[in-house]
């Protein structure tokens, strides 16, 4: 069995504005998870949360059946490419993490301290 990794997952302070995603996420997963797994997880959670709030809004306005139909389709469309994951390497500097890296490797290579791994996320910027 793979060992467990503890993560504090925050919006990128420079690339994400406060209204967009303000939630700090406290996450545990196994060390064999890759950065792509983490990115896809984030996309799924945010899609679910946005669809739930949209459904609640529809219920409040309409109150009719079928209000959540559009939410299921957006959750199915999530991709690990939607968010880019960063780690803070020095004061004010952030390094993009390759999607194929395991969190165990990120922990050993970049973090090296015995406390939860602190990572940052931002929507992937299209070139």
């Amino acid at each position, binding site marked *: 069995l793979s060992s467990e990794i*503890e993560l*504090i997952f925050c919006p990128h302070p420079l690339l994400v504005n406060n209204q967009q995603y303000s939630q700090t*996420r*406290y*996450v*545990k*997963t*196994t060390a*064999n*998870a*890759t950065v*792509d*797994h*983490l990115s*896809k*997880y984030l996309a*799924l*959670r945010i899609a679910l949360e946005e669809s739930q709030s949209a459904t609640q809004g529809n219920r409040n306005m309409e109150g009719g059946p079928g209000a959540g139909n559009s939410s299921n389709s957006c959750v199915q469309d999530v991709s*690990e490419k939607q968010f880019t994951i960063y780690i803070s390497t020095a004061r004010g500097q952030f390094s993009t993490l390759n999607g194929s890296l395991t969190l165990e490797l990120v922990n050993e290579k970049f973090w090296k301290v*015995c*406390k*939860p791994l602190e990572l940052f996320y931002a929507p992937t910027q299209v070139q």
Partner: protein
Amino acid sequence: PEEVTVTDITINSLTVTFREALVARGFFRSWELE
């Protein structure tokens, strides 16, 4: 923590489980050591 969300994510046939809590205290082992 009062509530923990459990989610499985699969990429290239590798499935990993994520657990997320609303607060860190009582959820992270190392948090208690500080």
